[in-house]
């Protein structure tokens, strides 16, 4: 029955739709179906409810001092003028900093935290990140490394992240789409051992590739992407 087949296909999409991560075309297809199918609509509502509840389980955390005032300062220009005396709480004004300064502040503050995994966009950021990572490693016994993934001509095609954890993994994001096709991948350690990793099938929407790894991140020398026997992209750690 085609209706059941439709339902099965839509049920498969519901978790991604409820989590807000479904692709536009899938979402559109599902919405058309929800309009006609009560059962699937109910299924979506229940799953969306669950996702909402999971968000509310996250522990509360007091924001940094002055947060409320900084938010209100951003809203104030759009607030309606008052006839009565203004009772906005007296707070420090918004930070008079540009994006670059905010970056530096973010870096300094983050260094003291059990923060996650951070990738730094510029050389300056990366220099800051070095000390940041050091702090993380000392404090938490694990770290993140990132290295640019470059083509044979030296063009930066993406970034390889190496995450030391349980399990450790590599994750590559591509800045420009690689040529579609089959790529063999290999991790080469600093002392020259080679570990083939799972192949990468580059397609139209291939913007990421990942693999778990069985070596320590600090042992990684290079990550190589090979096409038809030719190494076409390399990341050097």
């Amino acid at each position: 029955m085609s209706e059941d087949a439709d339902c099965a296909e839509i049920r498969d999409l519901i978790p991604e739709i409820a989590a807000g991560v479904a692709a536009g075309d899938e979402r559109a297809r599902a919405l058309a179906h929800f309009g006609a199918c009560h059962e699937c609509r109910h299924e979506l509502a229940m799953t969306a409810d669950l996702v909402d509840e999971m968000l509310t389980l996250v522990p509360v955390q007091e924001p940094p001092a002055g947060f409320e005032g900084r938010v209100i300062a951003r809203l104030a220009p759009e607030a309606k003028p008052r006839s009565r005396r203004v009772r906005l709480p007296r707070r420090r004004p918004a930070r008079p900093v540009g994006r670059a300064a905010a970056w530096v502040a973010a870096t300094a503050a983050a260094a003291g935290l059990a923060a996650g995994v951070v990738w730094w966009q510029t050389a300056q950021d990366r220099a800051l990140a070095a000390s940041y990572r050091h702090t993380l490693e000392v404090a938490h016994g694990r770290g993140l490394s990132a290295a640019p993934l470059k083509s044979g001509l030296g063009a930066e095609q993406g970034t390889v992240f190496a995450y030391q954890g349980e399990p450790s993994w590599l994750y590559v994001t591509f800045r420009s789409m690689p040529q579609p096709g089959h790529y063999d991948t290999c991790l080469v350690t600093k002392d020259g051992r080679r570990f083939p990793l799972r192949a990468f099938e580059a397609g139209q929407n291939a913007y990421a590739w990942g693999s778990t790894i069985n070596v320590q991140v600090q042992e990684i020398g290079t990550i190589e992407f090979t096409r038809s026997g030719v190494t076409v992209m390399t990341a050097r750690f």
Partner: protein
Amino acid sequence: MHGVWALSDESLLAGMASRDADAATAFVRRYQARVFGLALTIVGSRSVAEDVAQEAFVRAWRHAESYDPRKGRVPAWLLTITRNLAIDTLRMRGELPTDPFLLMGSLVSQEGGTDSSMDYDDRENLRRALLTLPPEQARAIALSVFYGLTGKEIAAIEEIPLGTAKTRIRRGLGKLREVLGVRDE
């Protein structure tokens, strides 16, 4: 009662929609720890989390008018805005999620919020169910719900077929839904 501080969420949003700064202040004060907590959980840095949390309140202020109570309660609406901003920030900065295990661990701690639509038993049941999920299902759910990764991306990270990634999420969510029992739409 005492002015805006005792108003319902919906009334505060109505106040914000009419550009009332007192309503906005009360709203921020009521939700800042929740919004900042979620932002921090996702982005992992206090400074970046503050940027995300500020932006979430600015968006709530600007879109207060379009809040539709039939589509969910205010905390869920605001936290969804926060989550989406935090995910966008991670992606824009090319950052990877913090360890999904750590995140799931924080959910089962007892410090979560209290003003959801669930009663206490439901919350405890949901926490217990999270604890008993197979780790691979819990990870897949965390990567999807909190980090906004698609099934494809999860499959790539976890080095599993797409079908397996989707199955982990669907089975995991199914188990969590069971403990919430039957609730009407």
